[in-house]
């Protein structure tokens, strides 16, 4: 059985003219890069998985961002940066990037909003990635453990599933999952969900969600496929039979999984860049902000790096045009 909406025909052909710069990540680094790139008249696209995700997006208050002389909520500062970038002509699309192809020219970016092509890329995905860390999680990926609700929810029609995590991203996916499954157990270690009030309010309206607050998942069980989770509440463990587990946890890993090894990383898993130009080992691909692992993780430093990368991307594109015309 399919949800009726899936018979809709969706036409999302990639744009024929590639972008000059595609920025992956909508934090301070990515948005500052967008401001500089768009202002330099480059055709610029920002792909951001969620405006309230990331270290700054989840910060309740920031008082030391230059030029803002009063405490501001992280997400609000991002709103200002986003507005500034789009005013200069940058496009902003909320989309998660799952894969890139850097062997292609222009480079290919595969996202939840379709495929995009860019002459240069700036990676600013931050360092709040989750690496499979719950016992059983890694083993059961693709066997009931999923990180893509819109992809995989149709496999759990009429079954019980768990969603682990309480961020805006997690709660935004709940509604889609709820259309297919019988019961959703939403598992969160916090007393109240960390997501914004609007997301929580929307999620609370869904009839088939069971909220398990102050609860941790200690294991995901199953051999061939997921059969259940073990949860811990107030010191007591309990088994919960579910067929699927959607994981939306936040961690401390640099977010590089979508690169599939095409960019050189440090042994710690951070993207390696030329400290001057922020270019990675792949020509035309830059990385900035926390994904390059900073000694000091501050929004203003990420923002400054974004500006450097945008200017370097511009330089890279000009050189290429010059090389082409010299050759001709």
């Amino acid at each position, binding site marked *: 059985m399919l949800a009726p909406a*899936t018979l809709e025909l969706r036409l999302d052909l990639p744009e024929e003219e590639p972008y000059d710069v595609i920025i992956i990540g909508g934090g301070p680094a990515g948005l500052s890069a967008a401001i500089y790139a768009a202002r330099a008249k480059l055709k610029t696209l920002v792909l951001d998985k969620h405006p309230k995700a990331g*270290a700054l997006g989840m910060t309740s208050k*920031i008082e030391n961002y230059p030029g803002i002389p009063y405490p501001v909520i992280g997400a609000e500062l991002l709103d200002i940066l986003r507005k500034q970038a789009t005013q200069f002509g940058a496009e902003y699309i909320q989309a998660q990037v799952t894969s890139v192809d850097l*062997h292609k020219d222009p480079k290919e970016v595969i996202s939840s909003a379709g495929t995009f092509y860019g002459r240069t890329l700036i990676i600013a995905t931050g360092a709040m990635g989750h690496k499979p*860390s719950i016992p059983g999680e890694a083993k059961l990926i693709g066997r009931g453990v999923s990180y893509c609700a819109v992809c995989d929810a149709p496999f759990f029609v009429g079954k019980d599933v768990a969603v682990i995590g309480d961020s805006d991203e997690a709660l935004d996916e709940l509604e889609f999952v709820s259309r297919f499954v019988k019961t959703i157990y939403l598992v969160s270690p916090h007393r109240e969900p960390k997501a914004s009030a609007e997301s929580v309010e929307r999620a609370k309206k869904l009839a088939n969600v069971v909220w398990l607050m102050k609860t941790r998942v200690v294991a995901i069980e199953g051999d061939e496929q997921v059969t259940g989770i073990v949860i811990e509440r107030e010191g007591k463990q309990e088994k919960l039979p579910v067929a699927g587990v959607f994981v939306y946890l936040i961690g401390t890993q640099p977010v590089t999984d979508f690169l599939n*090894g095409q960019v050189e990383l440090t042994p710690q898993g951070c993207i390696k860049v030329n400290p001057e130009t922020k270019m990675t080992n792949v020509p035309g691909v830059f990385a900035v902000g926390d994904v390059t692992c900073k000694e000091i993780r501050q929004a203003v430093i990420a923002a400054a790096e974004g500006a450097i990368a945008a200017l370097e991307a511009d330089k890279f594109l000009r050189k290429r045009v010059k090389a082409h015309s010299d050759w001709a």
Partner: protein
Amino acid sequence: MALLSERDRRKLEEIFRSRLVNPVKLVLFTQEQRLVWTPWSQPCQFCKEAEQMVQELAQISPLIDAEIHDIDRESDLAEQYGVDKVPALIVTNGSGHANIRFFGIPAGLEFTALIEDILTVSQGRTNLSEEVRAKIKPIDKPVHIQVFVTPTCPYCPRAVLTAHQFAMENPNIVADMVEATEFPELAERYHVFAVPKVVINDVVSFEGALPEHIFALYVLKAVDQLDSEGKKEFDAVERQLKAAMGDEDWEHEHHSHDEFENEHHFHRYEH
């Protein structure tokens, strides 16, 4: 009621007018509704809709031709095309190759994949890189690629298109999109719980929309045609994918650490 919205129809009119080169044939196999169904032959879920979709597309451009067949009444033809389930849609340029196939309706996000296929077949050239083309061309053994998808999966059309472009480059390759929710037994047989899932010759499989040069390595692996350089590349890719899927030492780490360290970061921002 039309399946295509008026807006999309007009958009397609423009796209087909400017980008179609040679004629394209859409060969669709459907099945008539019966009165009695047995457990081993279930009704076709979206045959009617698939037929309507193909007809609507054919009406947009004189270069698109629709051919509708019935899998029961024309069983010989179905066998010739290797069609064993419906709806089945084959995109061909009429050269006799029928190796670009969709099983299940290419609706939802897969509709874009169908349109891109029509354009590529009509233009007679894929947009694979030279490097990948050089890998795929020499394959001389039969390859069957099945890409399992759901209509709402945003990353699936790219995997389908890569497989279909391989098939365009090499007639030894047959590439199928399989809409997993319409063929649950097949999905179960291949343990499909996450999409896109790619199964090659029933021997090699992977999940996710991988870049085409990595996809190509898996195809070569399936037919045992990796050269020494390719073998090294393949091993490196496997290592990386495993590392990304989690450390072997996950038992030493509890995910609550994640949340804790995360809080720590917040404080560092809030001076």
